[in-house]
């Protein structure tokens, strides 16, 4: 194994998650979704513009779930949107679930269709997303957060990009905004839309989807996104209010 000379070194032969040695819980009919309907989302808390050094920033937290932070700043390159998506080591729950691929690509592609990069031919936009806690559906939250940070930085966009996730349960039912346990079951869908234009900007499907179920899932996701939209608008409004001081006597 190549040794990373730029970090404090850990044990030479690696380490394992203690969850691998955990006593197995009884494999019964685990009741998923307690107190939440299949098309119900968890509550979301959104803040824009809380980082002092970045040009724009946003933080999204799902109640009892994922926490995502994003910052945007101007880079030195040309006419490009550069995205960086990272999961903190402590973000994944102890079950040590596998990270699904394609996240960074989905982030990049969903945003590219919304940001008017042609307005900034001589500038490079850098975007960095950090997932601090993953309790299911962190990827669409990361995309929502990134779009919000871009808007907070005052970047011209056709619309905000809002993401939602859905998964297919054991019996074929479709669940919106899955938790990490629900994501493990079978098939997942991540959808991002531009709510005002009702256009889909990104879609990532994994696992097995049968018959009409993907269409149904997409509809569910789109509804979820639309419900989130006013919340994002509000947070942008309050962050802009903070940035622009009320007109003083000088202005007149």
């Amino acid at each position, binding site marked *: 194994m190549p040794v990373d*000379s*730029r*970090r*404090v*070194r850990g044990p030479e032969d690696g380490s394992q998650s203690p969850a691998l040695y955990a006593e197995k819980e009884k494999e019964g009919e685990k009741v998923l979704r307690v107190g939440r309907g299949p098309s119900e989302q968890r509550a979301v808390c959104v803040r824009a513009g809380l980082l002092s050094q970045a040009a724009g920033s946003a933080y999204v937290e799902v109640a009892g779930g994922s926490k995502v932070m994003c910052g945007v700043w101007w880079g030195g390159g040309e006419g490009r949107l550069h995205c960086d998506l990272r999961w903190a080591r402590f973000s994944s729950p102890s079950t040590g679930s596998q990270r699904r691929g394609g996240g960074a690509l989905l982030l990049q592609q969903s945003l590219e269709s919304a940001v008017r990069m042609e307005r900034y031919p001589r500038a490079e936009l850098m975007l960095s997303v950090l997932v601090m806690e993953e309790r299911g559906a962190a990827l669409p939250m990361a995309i929502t957060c990134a779009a919000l940070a871009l808007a907070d930085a005052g970047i011209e966009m056709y619309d905000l990009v809002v993401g939602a996730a859905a998964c297919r349960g054991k019996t074929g039912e479709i669940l919106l905004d899955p938790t990490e346990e629900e994501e493990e079951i079978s098939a997942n869908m991540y959808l991002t839309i531009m709510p005002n234009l009702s256009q889909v900007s990104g879609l990532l499907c994994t696992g097995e989807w049968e018959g009409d179920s993907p269409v149904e899932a997409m509809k569910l996701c789109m509804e979820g996104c639309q419900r989130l939209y006013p919340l994002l608008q509000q947070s942008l409004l309050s962050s802009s209010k903070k940035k622009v001081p009320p007109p003083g006597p000088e202005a007149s």
Partner: protein
Amino acid sequence: MEVSSESGPPTHGRCIVKRRMEAVERSLRMSGCELGLLSRPDGSANFLQGATSVLAGVYGPAEIKVSKEMHDKATVEVMVRPKVGLPAIQEKSQEQLIRETCESVINGTLHPRTSITIVLQIINDDGSLLSCCLNAACMALIDAGIPMRGLFCAVTCALPVEDLLIVDPNLKEQKESRAVLTIAMESMEKKVLTVSSRGTYSAEEFQQCVGAAWVSASDIFQFYKDSVKRKFSKS
């Protein structure tokens, strides 16, 4: 004067400082310093403290990459090469420490948009390595003729047990100590330029180390002078 040669671990007749500062027996392990022994660098020095040996080379003021260029002063770079293996983050942290110490005495504004590179090759480590690196860097800078505001020298102090202070410890003494401090002093006002430490110690002990470093500093500066004199009297 109470010189505590009868108590504590063997220190080979070198500097032991008792808790009260008046008892100082000064003798550092500095056994040699050879200047200008390398032909490629603009200045070089091999500094020996007992069996600890560091070879330093200085390149500069020289051309620099545009990305590293600073418009108002010279860019100082330090590279520390360990005796074996590749440099890791510990070396990186030492490099930063040595660089910032050198930067504070180098008159960088005289050579804007240039680079001054200091390469330190550790040849042998027998304790007091960091101070030997700093001393070697300073001597190599002198040899390269880099304009400097003043000089600096570093002293390592080890605190093995209560009431005992060893200046310029060897590796064994260093390992047996509960704290090891390296203090660099500058020559103009004899104030503390750099501090780096390992282990725990009290504020009082820290002040004693500063005192011991202060006392040893004049010896080292004298040694610097002699070494430079020797170089020029040879030719």
